């Protein structure tokens, strides 16, 4: 039987990252600050055409605050990559 998060459309990587983020948020100081500071990441994916940026997608690690936004951005980026 597939797990509920997979049914909802999350990948294992997304599931694992969400779990880790929840763990980081309830640590005592100073461990909490340390953990949260290494957790964040962002990525800009740009497609270049004729020396100029044709399209630009920013990926953020804000899975918990707005999981849907970051997941759909990732999906859009991979779609662009494939086409």
């Amino acid at each position, binding site marked *: 039987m597939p797990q509920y998060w997979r049914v909802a459309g999350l990948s294992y990587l997304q599931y694992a990252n969400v*779990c880790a983020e929840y763990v980081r948020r309830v*640590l005592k100081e100073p461990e909490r600050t340390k953990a949260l500071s290494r957790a964040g990441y962002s990525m800009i994916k740009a497609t270049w055409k004729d020396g100029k940026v044709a399209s630009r997608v920013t990926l953020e690690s804000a899975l918990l605050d707005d999981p849907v936004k970051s997941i759909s951005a990732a999906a859009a980026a991979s779609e662009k990559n494939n086409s």
Partner: protein
Amino acid sequence: MNKWLRPALRTTLRLWRRQWSAEATSGASVSTGASSPSSEEAGRVTLNFFCPHQVIAKNRQVVSVIVPAASGLMGILPNHVPTVAQMRPGVVTIIGDGGAEERYFVSSGFTFVHPDRTDICAVEAVRVSDIDPEEVSKALADCEAKLASSSSSAAAGTAEAQRAAVAQIGVDVYLAMQGVVSGTR
């Protein structure tokens, strides 16, 4: 039980016991057939415990390890059958000499039991003593509220379903944590 069956069974048992002790003294691994290195022979588990950002244990010799496998708690002793287990959010207990325990909360990850060593890979692993119990109950209440407010009938794969799943993951993580930090073990 039949009269003739009982002696036969006793003989089988005796043979099996002899076989067992022979293997125990020679140190051969029953499960793999491969010759395991001296550490496993000496009755110790060779443990590696890694996070992306930290090495918690490297080639450490321990008595046993208990990991929170997705299918239930799994105790690993020397010469455990090789296996791969997905972990759920829970506590990894490392038991050293004299029963000294070290406890880490892992978010998720995998445990690989090899014939000669055990590898635990987790995204986040923190000492249980570093968890703030008050924050856990607050976060649990928050996730439960989010889960209750999202509609349960959302179609799979939609934004609403994903939001509900993320809230559900939070409930899972914090329920596991609450059981640990509230002292019930």
